[in-house]
């Protein structure tokens, strides 16, 4: 599974990690929904550490879309909200 950490690049994560990562990703989503900044920060940092730990950086010359796109470690809840909004920060 390919995961992108914004500002860092893409990593190839073993498929066996999928369930664990998805659980962390769901925690992150509910933290965003309930505007829980501290849970958001801790889930994000847990998720990113796990991805960095088990993932291998993808070679730069590979061009593939990611299945998970994660915010940078220092992203705030407000920034992520804007990313998730339809015409948010992502340049077309």
């Amino acid at each position: 599974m390919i995961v992108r950490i914004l500002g860092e690049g893409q990593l190839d994560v073993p498929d066996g990690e999928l369930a664990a990562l998805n659980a962390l990703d769901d925690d992150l989503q509910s933290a965003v929904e309930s505007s829980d900044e501290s849970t958001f920060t801790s889930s994000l940092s847990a998720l990113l550490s796990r991805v960095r730990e088990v993932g291998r950086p993808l070679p730069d010359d590979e061009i593939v879309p990611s299945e998970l796109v994660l915010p940078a470690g220092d992203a705030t809840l407000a920034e992520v909200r804007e990313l998730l909004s339809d015409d948010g920060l992502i340049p077309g």
Partner: protein
Amino acid sequence: MGMGQRLALIFKSKANKVLDRAEDPRETLDYSYQKQLELLTKVRRGVADVATSRKRLEIQMQQLQASADKLQSQAQQAVGAGRDDLGREALTRRAGVNQQLADLQTQHAQLQAEEEKLTGASQRLQTKVDAFRTRKETIKATYTAAEAQTKIGEAMSGISEEMGDVGMAMQRAEDKTQQMQARAGAIDELIASGALDDASQPLGGRDDIQAELDRAGASSDVELELAKLKGELPAGQQQQALGAAQTQATEPQAQTEEQK
């Protein structure tokens, strides 16, 4: 659905919108390649801008450090001359300068981190753009409608995700740089106004602490010279000279009083 999945979908739908607009999907390859080259140019300019801001901060940090060092030696000089008041003033200003310096160091570290990230992003994008060009030509050469559709789709979502990421990194670095430039401008003004210290002023510019210290130094030098001259006079004249010196010293004072 988790947040990472949602974000991935948002990136994909941006790429799909571009694909949907084109009648012939092959057109999107050339169009996207042009956009990639434009973005690459922008990112390189972005890296250069961040570096310029970082260097400007470094120059300011050197100026402030020179000010802090100068104020420190002025404080020592003042204490040596028995002028605790001047010493206290110099140390107070040095504390202010050090505070500014600490702020600048934090900003410098942030800017350096942005610069590294953007440099990395620019190198990654360069490699991807090269790979895209090769893939674009391969897809065009082996074109059959059904086959091309999937290949183009993947290449386009992949590259558009990368471009989105790089675009955001650049926006972020630009915002940081702009904030820093505003603050750097304010500090330049402070330095120019002499509020922090005059160490950075052109030659001949002097600050008030130094002026006081020079006056204190000069007058004690004059006293020493005077005492030396008196010591050299023959014994009989010494008393007279002392009297004359006293009258001379009081006369100009009396004149200024009258003028008032």
